[in-house]
């Protein structure tokens, strides 16, 4: 099984260890992982800002890079959601391209969903001594149906306990460029989230998307919380943490 690993631009730039952790998990599940070297971004920032032409160009690029793989897997509900639920809309007027991106969409998966439902991973390499709380990132939850999968995997991590926070499905306020254009509202939403994380008493908040990670970590630190770790689910499962 040839799995094309879509690193995502935020993992590439901000937290490369997440990418290596994800590859380790995919390989532990028996996948042959390929990382197309020319990949950059899925085009979501352009798409969500109304710049359709650039979003199309980047979608066509991703298509060319991953079309030959059996699956496209990303350590992100947001980027995999972009490919799976929105690429077709970008080529609504081009039946040939539309057919091709629909085929790509059909084999696009979020990492934890792929580990649970395709690779049926029964053991994970990681270990975590402490309590974590899980934040459901919006696109993963509502576009990719990611809810039980990360929790099922976390349950396999020796030493790890999960303490669910209140409103775990409420948006953290990231929203891509929303976080910059409407910084004050975005920070308030993040602050609400931090309050729920703190109330859960967890040592770490675990989640599946880099944007939400940066947002939550940024607000936690600004609130003066230097202790609560903010970890990508792949880092916890693979036992690779900064």
């Amino acid at each position, binding site marked *: 099984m040839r799995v094309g690993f879509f690193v995502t631009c935020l993992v590439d730039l901000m937290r490369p260890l997440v990418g290596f952790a994800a590859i380790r998990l995919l390989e532990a599940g028996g996948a042959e992982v390929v990382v197309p070297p020319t990949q950059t971004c899925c085009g979501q920032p352009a798409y969500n800002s109304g710049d359709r032409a650039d979003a199309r160009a980047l979608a066509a690029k991703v298509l060319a890079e991953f079309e030959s793989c059996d699956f496209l897997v990303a350590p992100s509900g947001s980027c995999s959601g972009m490919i799976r639920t929105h690429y077709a809309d970008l080529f609504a007027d081009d039946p040939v391209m539309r057919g091709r991106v629909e085929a790509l969409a059909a084999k696009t998966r979020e990492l934890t969903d792929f580990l649970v439902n395709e690779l049926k991973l029964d053991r994970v390499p990681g270990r975590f001594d402490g309590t974590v709380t899980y934040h459901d990132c919006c696109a993963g939850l509502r576009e990719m149906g990611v809810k039980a999968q990360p929790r099922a995997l976390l349950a396999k991590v020796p030493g790890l306990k999960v303490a669910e926070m209140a409103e775990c499905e409420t948006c953290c306020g990231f929203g891509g460029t929303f976080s910059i*254009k409407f910084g004050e509202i975005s920070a*308030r939403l993040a602050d609400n989230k931090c309050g729920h994380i703190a109330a859960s008493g967890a040592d770490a908040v675990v989640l599946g998307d880099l944007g939400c990670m940066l947002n939550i970590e940024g607000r936690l630190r600004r609130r003066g919380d230097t202790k609560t770790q903010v970890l990508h689910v792949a880092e916890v499962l693979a036992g690779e943490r900064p």
Partner: protein
Amino acid sequence: MQVASMHFKERAHVKLHDERLQANLKKMQGKFVAKRRASLAEVGDFEATRDAGKAIRNRALENLDVWLEMFERNATARGATVLFAETPADINALVLEIAARHGVAKIIKSKSMVSEESALDHAIEAAGLKVVETDLGEYILQINDYEPPSHIIGPALHKSKEEVAQLFHKAHGTPLKSGIDELCLEARGVLRQHYLTADMGISGGNFFVAESGSVVLVTNEGNATLTTTLPKVHVAISGIEKIVPTLEDVATLMRLLPRSATGQSISNYVDVLTGPKGDGEFHGAEHMYFIVVDCGRTGVLASDVREVLRCIRCGACMNHCPVYQNVGGHSYGWVYPGPIGSILTPMYVGLEKAQDLPAASTFCNQCGVVCPVRIPLPDLQRKLREHAFERGLRPWYETAGFRMWAWVAQRPALYALASKIGVRVLKAMGGRDGLIHKLPVGGGWTEGRDMPAPAGRTFRELYRSGKGGGA
């Protein structure tokens, strides 16, 4: 109503720091969400009912002209007069004409958001007539110098009972009360006199039923029943999109509307009004008028956001919206707040006056998953962002920034070089605690947050050199 949507950010800033409002918003939010969720359990298959609701609304919109003609024919046959208003000014002119025809001095109103679009109350008062709002929320706002509504089904939800008590004390000259029950009784006492002395009652319309020429009103206070049956003239005002083909359709939509709105199986009152009082009938107005309103709706019907017209005005999208929950309805600056307003406002008043509204969304899609008629609100917000981008309404530096970033992202070698430099600069900015406290570009981020600094090498660099963690 005056449009203030171009000041969304500034208004939101004020509301975020209004402690009393924040406390009121927190109290409301949990109630709406929990009640809705509990009420869904009674419906065997709520998702299938949503599908049916969507199909009913689509069928109405696809042949809207046909249903409108059928409605007009049937309503006229039952003795009502059907009038069409193209602009907000037309709504007000028609109401004043009807009032003049019947020698009306005093008008009572049950809740109508459409009449907020045309600021009807102000037009009535400017013509020298008296108008009294009878929906409790609308009444509270009216006696507070016509404060705008902050929610489509609970216009005064932003107010606490203490604030309402103060208002009643001031407006009625009665002793200050504290209990909700006694406040309601006081309002009832005041409003009763108006029901009995008004010459004309104005209502909104949740649905206009084509097959019967009826208007359906969904309320909880009983005020709409009194408003539409006690005065000699009844005028029902609603949008062209509120047409549904049959009463059977209304039955299905009523399985969705109260549950999505207030978490009720059914509202306390559902009025189906068909024609004026007939011979030998005891209840009803002697004269019945419909004002069927366009005010931008045909434009929406012809646009790529037409799905928004399926809306049945339950308010679930705003009740569940994390942005609305924190900034409140007044931030949005016009009649309809929240996700539904972020589409309707730019479409009805012009995108150039309201382009912040579709932008002020995280695309979390909580609105989309609760909408009873499956309006894909984030997709429609994105369409409006596309319109803003295409029309050049965004600041030049933002557009240029996106263009440049996308241009680089299409050139892997250049992208690799740029990102290599970028992550090193950002790492250096991070300092000892690994946090960037102030970003020179995108400073909106660091107003309320730090930016965790990157690792300093990109994944692609590390992967190529084989230095990736333990992999």
